């Protein structure tokens, strides 16, 4: 295989881009309503919470860890913020700030446990996930909070313009998602700590030896996910106009799936924000197209599962080919 071909198509981002193009062409031929600007924006908004969480999970995956407790964190922070504003009449800023700090702190607990107990992070976060959820439901009696103030549950639109297919609205969730994506890109690609996160994920032993502060980097990665989980919790509550302790339970795997489809590896050190964004776009377009051609929405889960299987198999296949020694070469 020529090098250029491999360099271009060996990368997850380009595979996703190709998949997006193919999907878009197929559905454009199948349905005239496919991918108008307005329904595309609606889809993007629907994916905003998933994207924000996936950006955080991506950071933890790159660091060589994994975290499944972030929906519990999101639920807890969402509930705390809602309780503060709805029951205790806190103003917006201190309520959200306190809840955000709580989110980061819950993330840091995962980092501390993983670091000091030397237990693999999936076990630690399965445990903290149950713990956070159980505490939340116990303390709240699983009661929802409906009376969110207008600034929270109202639909805030930043930009509105008309197109042939209807009005396009750039809403708060889309803007928050955009900010999170840019912030994560900045953190991971353009700061020294971001490079240390990649280094830690690539070879933890070596990172320790060259003087990367392993605990510091882990605190940052898990704390950042906790912080983004809080943000995702606020956005989610705003979209459904209520805070429900179990609102996001079960979403962990979908979010992890997006990060993995986007090229993040479960062994760490690999992945990019652009990959995560492309994975979201791909799933959004696929879902939209399948809806329009009348495929049951239940079937979409099957599609996600297949997409991940294919992407993981492609990576594994590429690696096994790369590893295979060609033996009888001239010495």
């Amino acid at each position, binding site marked *: 295989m020529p090098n250029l071909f491999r360099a271009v198509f060996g990368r997850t981002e380009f595979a996703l881009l190709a998949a997006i193009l193919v999907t878009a062409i197929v559905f454009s031929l199948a349905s005239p309503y496919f991918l108008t600007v307005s329904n595309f924006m609606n889809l993007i908004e629907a994916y905003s919470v998933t994207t924000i969480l996936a950006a955080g999970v991506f950071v933890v995956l790159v660091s060589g860890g994994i975290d499944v407790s972030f929906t519990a964190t999101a639920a807890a922070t969402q509930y705390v913020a809602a309780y503060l504003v709805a029951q205790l009449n806190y103003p917006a800023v201190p309520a959200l700030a306190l809840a955000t700090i709580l989110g980061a702190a819950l993330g840091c607990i995962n980092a501390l446990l993983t670091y000091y107990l030397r237990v693999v992070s999936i076990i630690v976060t399965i445990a903290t996930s149950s713990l956070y959820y159980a505490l939340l439901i116990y303390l709240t009696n699983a009661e929802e909070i409906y009376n969110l103030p207008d600034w929270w549950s109202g639909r805030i639109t930043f930009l509105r313009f008309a197109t042939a297919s209807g009005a396009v609205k750039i809403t708060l969730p889309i803007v928050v998602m955009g900010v999170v994506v840019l912030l994560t890109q900045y953190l991971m690609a353009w700061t*020294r700590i971001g490079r240390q996160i990649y280094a830690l994920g690539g070879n933890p032993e070596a990172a320790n030896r*060259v003087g990367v502060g392993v605990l510091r980097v882990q605190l940052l990665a898990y704390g950042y996910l906790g912080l983004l989980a809080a943000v995702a919790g606020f956005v989610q509550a705003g979209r459904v106009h209520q805070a429900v302790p179990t609102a996001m339970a079960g979403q962990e795997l979908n979010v992890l799936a997006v990060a993995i489809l986007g090229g993040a590896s479960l062994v760490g*050190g690999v992945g990019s924000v652009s990959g995560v964004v492309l994975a979201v776009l791909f799933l959004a377009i696929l879902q939209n197209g399948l809806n329009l051609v009348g495929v049951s929405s239940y079937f979409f889960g099957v599609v996600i599962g297949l997409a991940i299987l294919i992407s993981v198999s492609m990576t594994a296949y590429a690696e096994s080919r790369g590893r295979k020694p060609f033996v*009888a*070469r001239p*010495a």
Partner: protein
Amino acid sequence: MDASAGGISRPFLLLAGIGKQFGGTIALEGIDWSVEAGEVHCLVGENGSGKSTLIKIISGVHAPDRGGSIIIDGSSHSSLTPAIAKSLGVQVIFQDLSLFPNLSVLENIAIDRELRSSLLPPPRQAMRDAAAAALARLDARLPLDAKVGSLPVAQRQIVAICRGLASNARILFMDEPTASLTRREVELLLETVRRLKTLGVAVVFVSHRLEEIVEIAERVTVLRDGRKVGTFAASEIDDHRLAELMTGESIVHEIMARPLGDVRPALEVRGASRAGEFEDVSFALRHGEILGLIGLLGAGRTELALALFGMSPLERGEILLDGTPLNLRSNQDAARAGVAYVSEDRLSLGLNLKQSIADNVAITVLDRLANAIGLVAPSRRKDLAGDWIARLGIRAPNADAAVQTLSGGNQQRVVLAKWLATNPKVLILDSPTVGVDVRNKQGIYELVRRLADQGVAILLISDEVPEVYYNSDRILHMREGRIVGEFLPRAGDQRRLSDALHA
């Protein structure tokens, strides 16, 4: 006894009375040692002789016990921290190289500059300059933006050396640097080391055997049981003398080859081929014979072994066992037919390190140990393991000890036990003494000899000339997937075999 190179210059590194105890065990005692600036020095000793402890003291990982002193570049310290050691120019390149496969050459070399001021962007231009400068000092060319994981091992080693240079290394410790290199790659490393010498950087090679490195080393220091045996001029040391110094025992190498007479072949290979691996390989291995198969890394020897063990099918040719053609579809077929294979990489392929000796030994013969309803009584498993521990002289507290708590030589014996339990007719040993120290090597050779005497046909695969030369009855030379020569130890000399191998 010290063959000092010196009096000419002040040593760059000078240790006096360095000792270290862990709990009650003495790891190092009374070490006096010096390394000159720009010197190439070998530090050798068996596993457990104190080499790694010494390096950890010099690089600041461990503090030495009171009373000793470390003088680096004229400044005296009673102990160091990693940061101080680094600032004095001490750099260690570990055997695994400690590189980041997912990062570029550039980032690997200049990673130091990404460690402080976390939220700032990495100083790309400064990093690029530093990496380019380090490569230029070695006169090496590497693509700065390539991922390190995509480079061959020899080039990764250059990246690791460059990282040391970029951090202002004045003395560079290299732990077992040639273990995974081909001869040609070793040449490249030697070239790099000569270059480091002209830059005034001292290089200390740390190893448990004398390697090609000794060609360019000035002095060799030998450690044994935590003490320094002595420092010698490299020119007065050879493999034989070194083995004596390291073990404190006089080891006599003698050619073990025996005349076999007219014994029928146990294993016959006729025209075996697999595209890209080996081509038209034919030989016969007789009962009780030890047949050496020597070839460099990449000659196809391991691939051939895997095919004989049923792991990959032949594309052409046939394998006969006791005259009957074998049709191997899996390694289970091979094991059932009486072929056993001790892999080169025993740690990842041959053993389950976390399990006990008993579990590891019993795994190949579970069928035989099982009772009528398929259950294996723990006592039967332990009896089996206890039996093999005694027969092979495995040093372990008991059969329940986890394999990872054993030394390299004893782990290798557990692998052997696991396969010997199947009563094989043919035993394939792939580089059986890699990572095993001199004393234990000898034990393994004796064991192999005893097995051959009992009639087991043994294929001894190796890339070490002395190993096959002294221990085989007959030697096949493999190159680029073909058998290109046959040697009889009694007839041909070691030199001729070595020249043929590296030609």
